[in-house]
């Protein structure tokens, strides 16, 4: 039996890579938590579930050091982790909590993105939706128009309820 909070897999890149993939994800847990510490030479970070390019939406609040804003996307082909380009040397931190990922309803997640560049940066909280009832068995992490840099680390955890 799976333990309550368990690391499923982790990846630290030894070379630049377009997509980080967690595949064949077991349905043995209740929730998933993805932790990403990433650098890239530009581009918005995003994820997709089960290689699907349809059915994503989100609602977010974002602070950039001078103002707070709220926005959303609807019927989008991917789920963005934030709207800011990834830095080339200063890593960003993203956590994605995916609730009832193996359940029969649409899949909802809470996302926290943090990125400070000593004079600029963003902090963001987001609720994301994948309008699909399939169990999530694969997560792909990519950077729009770019690649993840060497040293980028992604870890997937499984969380089990009583």
């Amino acid at each position, binding site marked *: *039996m799976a*333990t*309550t*909070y*368990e690391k499923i897999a982790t990846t630290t890149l030894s070379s630049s890579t377009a997509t980080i993939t967690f595949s064949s994800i077991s349905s043995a847990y*209740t*929730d998933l938590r993805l932790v990403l510490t990433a650098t890239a030479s530009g581009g918005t970070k995003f994820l997709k579930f089960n290689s699907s390019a349809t059915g994503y*939406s*989100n*609602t*977010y*609040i974002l602070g950039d050091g001078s103002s*707070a*804003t*709220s*926005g*959303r996307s*609807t*019927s989008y082909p991917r789920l963005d982790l934030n709207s800011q380009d990834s830095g080339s040397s200063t890593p960003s931190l993203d956590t994605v*909590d995916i*609730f*009832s990922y193996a359940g029969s*309803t*649409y899949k*909802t*997640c*809470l996302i*926290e993105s943090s990125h400070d560049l000593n004079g600029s940066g963003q902090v963001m*909280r*987001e*609720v*994301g*939706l994948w*309008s699909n*009832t399939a169990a999530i068995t694969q997560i792909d992490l990519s950077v729009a128009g770019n690649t993840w840099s060497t040293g980028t680390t992604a870890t997937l955890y499984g*969380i*089990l*309820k*009583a």
Partner: protein
Amino acid sequence: MLNTVLGSFSSGVAASTSSYESIATGTGTGLSATISFTSIPSTYKHLQIRGIAKDTFANSNVFGMYVTFNSDTGSNYASHRLGGDGASTYANGYATQTSIELRSYSVGNSATNIMGVSIMDVIDYASTSKYKTLRSAGGVDKNGSGNIELCSGLWQNTAAITRIDLVTSGTLWSSSTTFALYGIKG
């Protein structure tokens, strides 16, 4: 007045060797507005509640919930929140309340396949010398509408928390609702 019949619970799991353990899970019944965690042991440093929630109300509105500790319904609570609805942000705070109100944590039953989600941390819950603070994040996205919210809450009482009640701001917790309580070791 809200229905205060308790939700049902599944059984606990054996303690793991990790520092994050499942204590109990409360599940909505469709008959009660309250899900309660009782007899919470003081053997952890912090608590976390992870929720996926829906209300039985026959619309697709976003709902919240009221949190109380140890059955205290006195005016001993306060809260602050920051949120967004996809178009604008809001921030507010309330003092001397009879509960901690968390908004944007659930959705009405007409929102097919949509659930509200949340993560709540209760910090140093077993202390007998400090007031108790929680922080939480919750949200609902409905592909074109929805809310995201961050909240801090205060209970001005130094007693160790042994009971947590979660009361929907809608009508009743749907049977698809689950709140899972975890203990985090110090």
